[in-house]
């Protein structure tokens, strides 16, 4: 019997944007951006505040209609596809998701089944199994009967990820999934995302704040500034002092992370400088 959540998407999902312009009313945020998301990989978008990284994610998730250009999912323009068809291929976790008061974890995760149900196709045993899988994969299986409001921040974030997993999509977009979490929970969530790409072949795009964790966990790093992509590639290949200065306006020294052998950014400020800045 086939129980593992995920062999249903053997064809790798193809997500790309071409000549994308995004903005809110007359404020343009993304200018003529083109990008292609590598399948089965964890892609991380980084950049300074207000660089347009969340806007790009919202654009890719068709939450924001582009003023020009287009986003393509499996070769079709996402804006011309039925929204339900998109939802069967791509899930999204917004930055600050809201839940009905006193909702139970199992109920919330079950709401992820929405795009697979309809007027006539309601809840089935298969839906229960998928929700069970999502709870197990995110390590919250024993929390199913608890109210979301009672959980800690880390548990809550896992539940939201479980809900996105219950949507059974090959593509997952996450907007700052580690905000509000302490360092241990940040590592835990990023380990989970890595599991999902390596063991289940999901394609994940996440916006992250922490540059060092991004460098460690990203298979593919996208560095943005002022609504443009400055560099894109494996962190080892693209992260250097020049990139950090260009993207964050920060002088930093790049050392090798002793644990992961990936680049590690050590910022240089005005104080506590035992060595001189170059």
């Amino acid at each position, binding site marked *: 019997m086939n129980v593992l959540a995920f062999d249903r998407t053997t064809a790798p999902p193809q997500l790309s944007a071409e000549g994308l312009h995004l903005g809110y009313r007359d404020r343009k945020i993304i200018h003529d951006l083109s990008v292609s998301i590598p399948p089965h990989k964890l892609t991380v978008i980084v950049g300074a505040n207000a660089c347009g990284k969340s806007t790009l994610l919202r654009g890719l998730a068709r939450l924001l209609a582009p003023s020009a250009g287009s986003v393509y999912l499996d070769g079709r323009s996402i804006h011309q596809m039925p*929204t339900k068809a998109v939802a069967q291929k791509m899930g999204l976790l917004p930055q600050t998701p809201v839940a009905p008061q006193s909702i139970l974890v199992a109920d919330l995760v079950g709401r992820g089944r929405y795009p697979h149900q309809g007027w006539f196709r309601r809840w089935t045993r298969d839906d229960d199994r998928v929700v069970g899988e999502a709870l197990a994969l995110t390590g919250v299986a024993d929390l199913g009967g608890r*109210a979301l409001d009672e959980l800690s921040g880390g548990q809550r974030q896992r539940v939201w990820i479980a809900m996105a997993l219950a949507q059974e999509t090959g593509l997952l977009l996450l907007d700052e999934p580690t905000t509000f979490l302490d360092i241990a929970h940040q590592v835990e969530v990023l380990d989970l995302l890595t599991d999902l790409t390596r063991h289940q072949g999901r394609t994940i795009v996440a916006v992250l704040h922490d540059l060092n964790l991004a460098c460690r966990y990203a298979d593919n790093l996208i560095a943005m500034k002022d609504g443009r992509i400055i560099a894109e590639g494996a962190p080892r290949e693209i992260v250097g002092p020049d990139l950090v200065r260009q993207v964050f306006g920060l002088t930093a020294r790049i050392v090798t992370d002793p644990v992961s052998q990936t680049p590690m950014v050590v910022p240089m400020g005005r104080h506590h400088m035992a060595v001189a800045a170059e």
Partner: protein
Amino acid sequence: MPNPQDFIDIGADVAGIREALARRRWLVIIGLGGLLVIAFGAAMILGDYPMSIDNVVRSLLSPLTGETQKGIDFIVLGLRLPRAMVAVFAGMAFGISGALFQNVLRNPLASPDIIGISAGAGTAAVAAILLLHWGGGMLALAALGGALLTAAAIYLLAWHQGVSPYRVVLVGIGIAAVMAAIMSFLFTRARLVEVQQAVTWLTGSLNGARMSDALQLGLELAIISIVLVPLSRAAGALELGDDKARALGSGVERARFLLLGAGVALCALATAVTGPIAFVALMSGPVSRLLLGPAGGAIVPAAMTGAVITLSADIIAQHSLPGVQLPVGVVTGGIGAAFLILMLIAANRTGRTA
């Protein structure tokens, strides 16, 4: 990675939790149904001429049995039954309307009586009474038109690349204030007799409820409820916020328009018959959510809560003071004001935005 057998076991747990929630939902619905039956019975039996249960049942069944009990039939079928039916249908309409607004706008204070729909109906009715000297059916039409026009105005003023729930609430509260100002202005220019008539209408009353009103409102309620059934899925998605609902493949803007449209129609149609019965729309959703706890889907329980509140309040309004019949809106207003204060205190305690 966990092993596959775990998934099946956890899936069974999930099914168990879902079934427990469904059970609780049914318990709430059955409990409210019981209360409604009791209130309905009381409405038939109590009055200046107390009836025996036997007489009431025989009279209610008389269209089938052909039996006649002249005086009793007049009181039960001619007076008490239409009044109770209008109370139930109007209560259901207000209850659903409030629950829809609160659900779609994700705000427990966002009910049609707070964000200007009732005020719009009221202003139109007051203008019709004071300026055009209308009454009866024309007055109902004026109230209906006022509610629909106000709703359209709120929706258009709140539009900005789609309608955000927050803007609807703010614009609605603003419109309610404008409507109150217009009403005050109309009152200052009016004659006292007409002012009395207008104020009575504004309080919301079931006096003089006719069977034709009851049947018409019941039919309208049934039609809108049927329209709401396929929309209930989208209502569940909207609870998770616009972004998440869109990501789940729900047509957010269309669903919100249709759900709010249904809410406005229900509120407007009920208001046209009874006047704005204060706070029923505001209270029904939160009360039923309190009963439901973690079990979602508040719309049906809110309808029943609205009916129970309105019918019970009308019984209190008719019989609490000897010799005085209060308009039902006075009683719901009193209960509702206390409820609103409790709700604000609770919201303040938990630190949630009410």
